């Protein structure tokens, strides 16, 4: 039986998530794995926004920040369970994305980039400056999700690292599944169409403004949930999560891996998460090597790592 690309992607992901732990020499690898998955989730949102719909955002870390601080603040101030805080963060992000997206998505290219950048900076500025509420630049503690304890009661005793590895992995699988469904669906096609030609998309009946907004909101939710997972996992969060560098990092991961494909982008998240860990051996040269890798990949594998490699393997195209 031949697998569709969607099934192949999900299967690859699931197998990787399930099997790699057998090769982990220590608990630290679970931590790195979990980080890859959390980043992978945010980057999947970027695939929808940038890969499918062709809209660039340099402010998505703002939504990650909202997701993260929802988990830090809501349990304390509203007394709700952290799990609901994740949902609350996602809802706030979605609403905010909707409000912000309506005016700024009319902008194109770099103008959209700078507007979204402005949004991201505003969020991180609020997180930094409203010290009373957010703890300011020094960060704030985050409540425990409590799911690990619950699993323990059911006889599944995981270390903290293991739990977050599998839990984030599961979330990523779910996120990837949703994004892959979207790709070949009418909405996904409409998004890709407006990427190609907005005018033509409009004349075939695509409500371009609404479609872009849809993509923006959905990708914001991805970023928000990713931020929430990060906060819950670290049990401590600082405004860096909403910072400009984090936004850039998301886009870079996606483009490096292959912004047009979910698996590619996740692959990119993996590479850029792993690279600093590998490079600690020559810490001095870390930035040098990181910059070099980014340039080389984009020069020689311009569609991104994974799509280019697959294309080479399949032997089609240049």
């Amino acid at each position: 039986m031949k697998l569709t690309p969607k099934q192949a992607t999900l299967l690859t992901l699931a197998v990787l998530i399930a099997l790699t732990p057998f090769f982990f020499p220590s608990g630290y690898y679970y931590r790195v794995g979990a980080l890859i998955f959390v980043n992978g989730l945010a980057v999947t949102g970027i695939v929808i926004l940038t890969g499918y719909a062709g809209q660039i955002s340099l402010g998505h870390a703002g939504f990650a920040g909202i997701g993260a601080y929802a988990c830090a603040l809501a349990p304390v101030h509203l007394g709700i369970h952290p799990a609901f805080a994740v949902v609350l963060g996602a809802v706030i992000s979605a609403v905010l994305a909707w409000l912000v997206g309506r005016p700024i998505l009319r902008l194109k290219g770099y103008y959209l980039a700078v507007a979204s950048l402005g949004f991201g900076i505003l969020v991180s500025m609020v997180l930094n400056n409203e010290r009373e509420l957010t703890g300011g630049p020094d960060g704030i503690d985050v409540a425990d999700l409590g799911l690990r304890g619950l699993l323990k009661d059911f006889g599944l005793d995981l270390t903290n690292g293991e739990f977050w590895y599998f839990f984030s992995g599961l979330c990523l699988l779910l996120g990837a599944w949703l994004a892959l469904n979207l790709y070949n669906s009418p909405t996904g096609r409409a998004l890709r169409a407006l990427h190609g030609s907005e005018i033509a998309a409009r004349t075939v009946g695509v409500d371009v403004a609404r479609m872009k907004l849809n993509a923006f909101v959905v990708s914001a939710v991805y970023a928000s949930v990713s931020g929430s997972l990060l906060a819950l996992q670290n049990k401590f969060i600082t405004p860096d999560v909403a910072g400009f560098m984090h936004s850039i990092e998301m886009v870079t991961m996606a483009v490096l891996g292959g912004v047009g494909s979910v698996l590619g982008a996740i692959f990119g998240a993996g590479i850029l998460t792993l690279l600093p860990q590998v490079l600690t051996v020559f810490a001095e040269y870390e930035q040098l090597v990181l910059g070099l890798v980014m340039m080389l990949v984009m020069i020689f594998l311009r569609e991104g790592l994974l799509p280019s490699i697959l294309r080479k393997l399949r032997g089609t195209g240049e």
Partner: protein
Amino acid sequence: MLTVEGLRSRYGRIEVLHGIDLSVDSGEIVTVVGANGAGKTTLLRCLSGVQPVTAGQITFRGEALTPVPAYKRLRRGLAQSPEGRQIFTNLTVEENLRLGAFLFNDDRVEKDMEDAFQMFPILREKRNLAAGGLSGGQQQMLAMARALMGRPSCLLLDEPSMGLAPIIVSQIFDVVKGLKALDVTVLLVEQNAFGALKIADRGYVMETGRITMSGAAEELIADPRIREAYLGI
């Protein structure tokens, strides 16, 4: 003047020109006709150097052209009015024309521009407007005029009559015919095969990346196969 031998070219892994042989003599008008996707545009792109050649030889005025980068080919006298017009949409009509004469910095530029305006008066009216605002046909005229500003000794025209009003079409063909007097060689790709063959000296027929027929223009017009497949008569 221009000879092409065994020319092959590909997009990625797919070869679209499978060994083209063709020649254009000095002062000649030669036309290439063929169906959509036959490879006519690709052929012209190879000649102007914006499309990589995988095998074969292009010789222009006795020199091998293949190693010459695209931007140097105009210096050798080879100009192209490309498919899709490819004008500088953000620049004005006049700037487009001036850039057509990018290589020259002499009084003749003004004169050539005057000639271009003579030929297409509408361009004079629009000289200070962004070329992107022109109508399709006006852009086509601009592309043709810009190619002429480069003072070519050999002109490659990719469907110059596309999108032009009937009056202008006949005018364009007249211009092309007139180039002969100026000793400009022309390689003309046309879908208006009838019009093209009427002004051409010789013609080639291209089918899926190969030359399948060639001969004097009158012969081709008379050939029943051509009449049926390309002239629709």
